[in-house]
């Protein structure tokens, strides 16, 4: 959280010059042990996004940091999931979607660039969905799938990755005796952790989580949140959540969206204790949303 104060929030979408001038140099002051921590990884630069004729994101401008957990919060329909799905180009699957202005860069590469293969992008930017969606295959095959589609079919290789991923998702001890049973036989929370394990098996850099706990009970939620804490040592995590407690508990940085605009982006602590924008304050204190 060393670099947190370097970020300024955009209080109004039109006021983009303020953000541009306040660009930080986060690397300079980074003194954290893990390499690259806190460095800008994803640069979302003044993005306007459209579903057909309908504009869903208005001049969103934010830099997301490496090996941190960033939470996107905001009321339903505010564009947080849309932005998340822009980051691995899942929106490509929907007809008529387009970024009409601005760019998104990961490690300085424009992910909507002409030469970018969305398939390669999605291998580097994994995603966990709101509803756990294991494939109707065995637990083992669910995790091996990401490797098999890359042509990695060697048994020893797969065995190793499956175990490592399941351990990484804190699921190994629960399922190690039934790896070849269907993934659909697991409980809701286990299924969601299986999906996380499946995602980390292809060793992405970024994991996008789209309300990963909204369908889970409190105990399962606590396990996933604990897992997020562990995962941020290795991955950059961006999580969309409706639960402000969850954002407060497990994120380092929080971005508040409203009506397709980024209202405020800052340290989680600051957002929840002392937000600079009155709308943010109203939302986090539960007065609207």
């Amino acid at each position, binding site marked *: 959280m060393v670099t947190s104060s370097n970020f300024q929030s955009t209080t109004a979408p039109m006021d983009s010059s303020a953000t541009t001038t306040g660009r930080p140099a986060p690397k300079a002051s980074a003194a954290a042990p893990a390499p690259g921590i806190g460095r800008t990884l994803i640069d979302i630069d003044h993005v306007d996004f459209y579903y057909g004729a309908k504009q869903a994101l208005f001049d969103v401008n934010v830099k997301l940091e490496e090996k941190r957990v960033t939470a996107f919060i905001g009321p339903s329909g505010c564009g947080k999931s849309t932005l998340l799905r822009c980051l*691995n180009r*899942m929106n490509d*699957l929907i*007809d008529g979607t387009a970024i009409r202005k601005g760019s998104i860069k990961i490690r300085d590469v424009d992910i909507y660039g002409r030469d970018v293969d969305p*398939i*390669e992008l*999605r*291998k580097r930017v*994994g*995603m966990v*969905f709101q*509803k*756990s*969606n*294991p*494939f*109707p*295959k065995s637990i083992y095959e669910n995790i091996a*799938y*990401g490797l*098999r*589609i*890359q042509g990695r079919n060697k048994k020893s290789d797969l065995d190793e990755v499956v175990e490592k991923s399941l351990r990484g998702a804190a699921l190994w001890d629960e399922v190690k005796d039934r790896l070849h049973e269907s993934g*659909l036989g*697991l409980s*809701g929370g286990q*299924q969601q952790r299986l*999906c996380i394990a*499946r*995602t980390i098996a*292809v060793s992405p850099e970024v994991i996008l989580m789209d309300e990963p706990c909204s369908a889970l009970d409190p105990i399962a939620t606590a396990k996933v949140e604990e897992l997020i804490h562990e995962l941020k040592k290795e991955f950059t995590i961006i999580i969309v959540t409706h639960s402000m407690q969850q954002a407060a508990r497990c994120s380092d940085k929080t971005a508040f969206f409203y009506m397709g605009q980024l209202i405020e982006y800052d340290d989680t602590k600051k957002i929840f204790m002392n937000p600079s924008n009155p709308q943010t304050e109203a939302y986090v204190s539960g007065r609207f949303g």
Partner: protein
Amino acid sequence: MSSANSDTAPASPGTFLIQKERTRFFGLTLDECIKTFFGGNAVVAVVVLGLITLFLFREGADFFGQNRESLRVYRQAGLEYVDIMRETERDHTALTRYLFDIRLQALKALTADGLSVAEANAKLAAFDDFSYAYGDAVLNVRGLVSDLTEAASAIKTKANVADDRRIERDQYLAAGMTAEAAAVTVEDVDFATEVKAITGTLPFYKDELTNFGTELERVVTELPVLPVPEVQPRLERFRQLTRQYVAGFPDNVERLENWDQFAPVPLSRSFTSFIFGTQWLTASFWQDWYGVVPLFVGSLMVSTIALFIAVPLGVGAAVYVNQIASPREQRFIKPFIEFISAIPSVVLGFFGIAMLGTALRAMSQWEAMSWVPGFPFAERLNALTAGCLLAVIAVPTIFTLAEDAINNVPRAFKEASFALGASRLQTILRIIVPASLSGIVSAVLLGLGRVIGETMVVLLCAGNRIAIPDFTEGLAAFMQPVHTMTGIIAQEMGEVVRGSIHYRALFVVGLLLFFIALTINFLAQKIVRKYRISVG
């Protein structure tokens, strides 16, 4: 509200009024009437299905008794005995055919070397002498079998006439016309004495057989030398086959000696002669055979061809429409394919005769297509033509049901797969199709059910030859005309005498079809239920 209630709590103007007089018809409220109406419809459907099944069984069941009777007469009138003798002659004919085949091969080789046909024939003169001698050797045996055939069929005719008379007399008696009944003379056939005339020829047959054997041995000791050396080994093989054949004569004689005219025919024999019988021969002067195998094989072959074509087309189209096509394409393709099922099958059959059969045959005669097994073929109407048209009928069924199954795969699977970096093709092949496989399999099964029950197209286009295709020719068997179970019912039902064995045999074929269709539908439902994906 009960009166007891109003006792304890005195009724006030604002009392709790929930009772209402309802209109009743025949003592039933409107709700109950509606329930009865719908329930009644369901019952009618079930009852009708039950009646159909019962009717099929009732009409078909007698077949096995009648067939057993027919087989009994076949044995007692000595027809079976003569057929055992005939085997000798038949096997000889098969060997002669082998000889013709050798000659054809030699002739082809010679003409390929640049000789004219006349020259080639001249070169084969020695071979021809040999083959004439071989063919003539059978004449005496053939003559004897031919005489006995007539004798046996005369006995059978006599027995049939006696049966008819007996029925006539019984009918008179039943009608109370005793005088007329007495006028009908029934000449009972004494099978034992009558057949003596046939079995009595055994010593003579034995002699003939011995002579025949020696003659064949003599003929094959001196094999002609063919002008084409590469065919010579086949001739050697032929000699071997002939020796085996002659060595089998004692067996044949032994079977004749042990033949028991009055051995009982078990009912199971009647059953097996239907299920495993390889001949469907009706209105024959000799013996009628009702063996379902040629028809079953025919049905199976056209269905196989149909599925072979329709499964890739139907499933492929379903995958495309559901997963790849743009909404505009979807709106165009879906109704178009579903429209195919609106074409009456007789129109399709007509198209098959007028267009497809001719086109396929013309195509088979192209030089460029000669690598295809069975090409070129001469029969315009054959299993292939019928199968191609049946595929057209099966495609809409398979397409619609498979598309449905694919559509039922949750979108979440697709998204998860893409999010892991899978391409569209990988997602389809590894996630979508496996997840909907049970639905696709049942779609294919229901397509099969549709195809195997289809009548008009096969009747018009399958060629209607009641014979098991020659599978020794490999895939070329599929270019031969066949007859099917549905086709034979449609073709023959109009011409048979009601209640006759032939009539009942057709019903049993119908029953068999019914059970096949039932099994297929049952399996399809079971597969869907068992493997339906539970979306967690």
